[in-house]
């Protein structure tokens, strides 16, 4: 087993323990989808697309008073170290469910009775934290599709490696670390809409990790907003640059 944190307190990819990986956000990346977004977060490369509100098929799933939200998280066969079988795994089915439940509180589904909204997420390349990056992109794609929303949803994980609580685990840290705590929030409504925990942490570590993840969410939320503003109001600077600067200044 390699050392995940060196004597200078730096991680395998050179980050400090409270630092996010480099990231990049884009919206409107697909032509056919009603809304779409693309995220790079470390080596994660993920595209999210939204179709809807639209007619419900099969019809018997129609809800009389609100919109039916569906979500599919899927990994391309080439996205992982060893080729992934293209059929949906149980892991993908579970993640699809919790992502849907994490997005639903942000959407005003009562505005679209008897319709459906499909959120499709394709992981083109996966790294640690792909479910969090997927959520962040999916929220952007929903906004890009013009769906009525109460708030954005933004997600980030914290975890425990070699006894230390760190932000935003990459693949190696996820595999060899002691715990991973993905968290999603609606920042303005103060609602945690996704929380999972894999691994073992003490009562105090849980609190520390949870709060660190919320801090990561805040940085990403600023980037989400900047991306949408740039797209719709033509602000000149590329938002991902801004995001990274704000993050760096915050950390210095």
């Amino acid at each position: 087993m390699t050392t995940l944190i060196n004597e200078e307190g730096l991680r395998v990819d050179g980050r400090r323990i409270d630092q996010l990986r480099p990231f990049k956000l884009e919206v409107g990346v697909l032509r056919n989808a009603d809304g779409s977004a693309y995220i790079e977060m470390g080596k994660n490369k993920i595209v999210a697309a939204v179709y809807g509100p639209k007619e419900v098929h099969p019809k018997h799933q129609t809800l009389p008073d609100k919109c039916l939200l569906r979500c599919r998280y899927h990994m391309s066969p080439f996205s992982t170290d060893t080729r992934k079988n293209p059929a949906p795994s149980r892991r993908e089915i579970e993640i699809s469910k919790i992502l849907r439940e994490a997005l639903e509180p942000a959407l005003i589904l009562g505005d679209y009775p008897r319709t459906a909204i499909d959120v499709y997420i394709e992981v083109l390349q996966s790294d640690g934290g792909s479910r969090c990056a997927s959520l962040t992109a999916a929220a952007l794609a929903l906004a890009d599709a013009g769906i009525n929303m109460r708030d954005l949803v933004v997600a980030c994980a914290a975890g425990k490696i070699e006894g230390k609580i760190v932000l935003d685990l990459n693949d190696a840290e996820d595999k060899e670390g002691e715990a991973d705590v993905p968290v999603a929030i609606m920042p303005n409504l103060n609602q945690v809409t996704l929380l999972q925990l894999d691994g073992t942490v003490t009562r105090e570590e849980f609190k520390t990790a949870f709060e660190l993840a919320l801090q990561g969410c805040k940085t990403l939320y600023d980037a989400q907003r900047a991306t949408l503003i740039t797209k719709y109001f033509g602000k000149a600077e590329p938002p991902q640059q801004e995001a990274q600067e704000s993050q760096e200044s915050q950390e210095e």
Partner: protein
Amino acid sequence: MAIGRNPIVVEHIRKTRMTELLSKGNRLSGRGLLEYRPIKIETGLIEKASGSAKVSIGNSQVIAGVKVEMGTPFPDTPNQGLLVVNTEVLPISSRYAEPGPPSEDAIELARVVDRGIRESKMIDLQKLCLIPGKKVLAVFIDVSVLDIDGNLFDTISYACTAALATAKIVQYEVSGEEIKASEEKIPLPVKTIPISITMARIHDALIVDPDLEEEAVMDARLTLATDSDGNICAGQKGCPGGFTVEQIMQAKDIAIEKGKENRELLKKMTGIA
């Protein structure tokens, strides 16, 4: 969202009543907010399994059985045995459970229970290795859900834990490449007893062990599992609603305290140390 939740319409009046009561710290059933329904645990009824447990929490009822087979380790963990948790929500358990491939809900259930056992390191997988890289023991825990009345997460989880903790497996003696089954039966290498606590938020109230009616109106669900040392070893938020940051912190404390209580109960009922 709980299995069988969607089709249940709790009448409006009943729901209003439930919320009123909860705001005063009471529940329709008369239970306290942090009170479990009666928990029953019976072990050893399936003689053909290495271990088994029938667990009921209130009217929810499941059976877990443990089978051990020879297997090949994963290439990236050549020194570890295998652990597989599989849950079937049988059609006998509810008029809303259809036969067929496992639903999304059933897959989530099985995976959350699996993580609770796996991440707590309840079973020392290293000790299930016979010949590194070649032969290991594979432990299958299968759960059949017989009757649904809410909080399947904990019912299933306790059944798995009880079945594993009381299982007796064949002892193998390895010399070189040769594996010999001995006459001896030994327990599985159990290191800790994970206990999950499932909580629900209904409006502003946080309750434990939601029954089917409460699941039908709950806004959000949170399951946290703890190990014998009181550390948190698995977590899963569910349902299309959220928790405030404060509620999460409160839930963490509840999980640790109720976890301690239910762990003692489980130990007593299964007769394990």
